[in-house]
């Protein structure tokens, strides 16, 4: 019983990180229909920037995370402006290839600057706490709480502000949005900014319990794709729920099935979903 609760808690932690990454991916997909394969590299970069700020400049964890959010967000804006905008009318194949090119570059870049070694990130919240028979570090609790705060803020931004509502409008109907005078380019850049920022938050939160290395984004991005297919490509609630579902399935699978194959759970899930329903769960309409 204790193991089960402990694993559910772990699942919640991993799920929080997955949800944040998947949110960024689904926002970009919803608006621009780009499956951004480079999103995992943005995640990885976010981790490195936070780490460097802390180790090189002795900046505090939160400030380092803030710098990282801004930096990765701006990188997202640059990618939209100088890569994806040029490909907006190109065949869908081109977006994917361009994103893969960016991914390869960013990974090589990280390796060039920071080397191929694994780094640990020391957060100020490494204390071990015991509550009701559960043992966990404060950092894990922080991940869960911070993820919820970020999701609530994002929700308020999208629903309650004008700028946020333009994003929603554009994800529902691009032509319609441009007809009512929404500046598509601005919204696209903003979306990439948010998407990059979310990736940076996710990796900054997760790095203290994982490791920082050039390939850290690989599995995360693949799983994020599984999540947004699970939750419906472009769906925001779908990304959140899907993230938690995957988090739980993995932590339970690792305990009760096999730790070796826990990373395969997501992909088997995906293979099953797409086998049963080729357009993904919760696909809109028939066309």
């Amino acid at each position, binding site marked *: 019983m204790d193991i089960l609760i402990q694993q559910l808690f772990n699942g919640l932690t991993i799920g929080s990180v997955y949800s944040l990454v998947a949110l960024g991916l689904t926002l970009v997909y919803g608006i621009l229909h780009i499956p951004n394969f480079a999103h995992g590299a943005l995640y990885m970069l976010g981790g490195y920037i936070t780490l460097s700020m802390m180790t090189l400049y002795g900046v505090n964890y939160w400030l380092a995370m803030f710098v990282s959010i801004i930096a990765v967000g701006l990188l997202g804006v640059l990618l939209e402006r100088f890569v994806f905008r040029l490909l907006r009318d190109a065949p869908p194949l081109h977006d994917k290839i361009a994103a893969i*090119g960016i991914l390869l570059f960013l990974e090589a870049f990280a390796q060039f600057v920071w080397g191929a070694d694994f780094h640990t990130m020391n957060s100020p919240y490494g204390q071990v706490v015991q509550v009701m028979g559960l043992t966990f570090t404060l950092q894990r609790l922080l991940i869960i709480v911070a993820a919820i705060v970020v999701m609530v803020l994002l929700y308020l931004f999208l629903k309650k502000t004008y700028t946020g509502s333009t994003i929603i409008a554009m994800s529902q109907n691009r032509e319609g949005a441009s007809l009512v005078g929404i500046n598509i380019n601005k919204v696209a850049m903003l979306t990439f900014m948010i998407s990059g920022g979310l990736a940076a938050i996710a990796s900054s939160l997760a790095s203290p319990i994982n490791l920082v290395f050039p390939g850290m984004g690989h599995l995360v991005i693949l799983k994020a794709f599984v999540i947004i297919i699970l939750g419906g490509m472009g769906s925001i609630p779908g990304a959140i729920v899907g993230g938690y579902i995957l988090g739980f399935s993995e932590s339970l699978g690792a305990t009760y099935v096999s730790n070796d194959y826990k990373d395969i759970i997501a992909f088997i899930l995906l293979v099953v979903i797409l086998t049963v329903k080729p357009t993904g769960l919760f696909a809109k309409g028939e066309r």
Partner: protein
Amino acid sequence: MRIVTKRNGLIALLILAFSFPYIAQNDYYLHMLTLSFIWAIAVYGINLLSGYTGYLSLAHAGFFAIGAYSLGLLTVKAEMNFWLALAGACVITCVIGLLIGLIALRTKEHFFAIYTLCVGYIIYLVIDKWEGLTEGVRGLIGIPAPGSIGPITFDTAASQYYLVLLFLLAVIVIMYRIIHSLTGRTYIAIRNSEDLARTIGISTMKNKLTAFVLSTFFAGLAGALYASFIRFIGPDIGSTAIMFDLLMYLLVGGIGTLSGPLVGTLLLVILSQNLQFLQKYRMLIFGPLLTLIIIFYPRGLAGAAFEWQRKRRDKKLSMVRADMHMKAEEG
């Protein structure tokens, strides 16, 4: 009679390819070229599906690995004759390809790309973790070189080069014939618009599946040749890094062109061999290159060359016309 024609150019290339072992001063270049030819065969497979049929597969490094491991296991563990094992490896890859294709091809566009990316990853993970069969990260060692056929043996660098060259030529001839046939036109029609293809009576699923299986066959064949050439294989040959390398060769050379896979593979393999210091960081250059190419030259070097040729021809034509016009006025 013009001397520089397409036909003469091809003959010259063939002569060069066949005499290369005599020109090359050492085995190093021969080794490198043989390896590029093997990669090129896999890239032709990806091109058939992604370039001509319009489905971007990210699982082909996985099929390459399946071909390689099948040959490795059949020769090392089952101690089968090399040629039987080669045929077996291709059959195994095709059967797995058929099963995966049946499911994967129900999805479209982005879903297909993501699905195949995950399939590729599953293949990699299975090879990596199933130590009882594949020896896991330790890799499979002691894979034999191609067995001799009568008096012909394949234990020198030159003989292996010729063997791989022959396979490559066969693949290119097959690709050429497919593209210039009704079957190839059918694939292109599917790439162009699947809805339109169905309205003109094309069974899209059947055709996509054939293209998919044939493309996995090429990948598997390349993998099997790789295993017997390098004699050692590890799970890494099925990794996404290899997949992205192959994709890069295809994109730089020209996706959806006949010469693209060969041009791109040769160029990039030779380039990265000569820029050894770059090996680790080559993606610093190749990554942006890939992105720039897809933005500005979506059909790669081969596509750019066609474009240039066409422009030159148009220019010539308009000059001829202007010339005739002037003459007509003078007369």
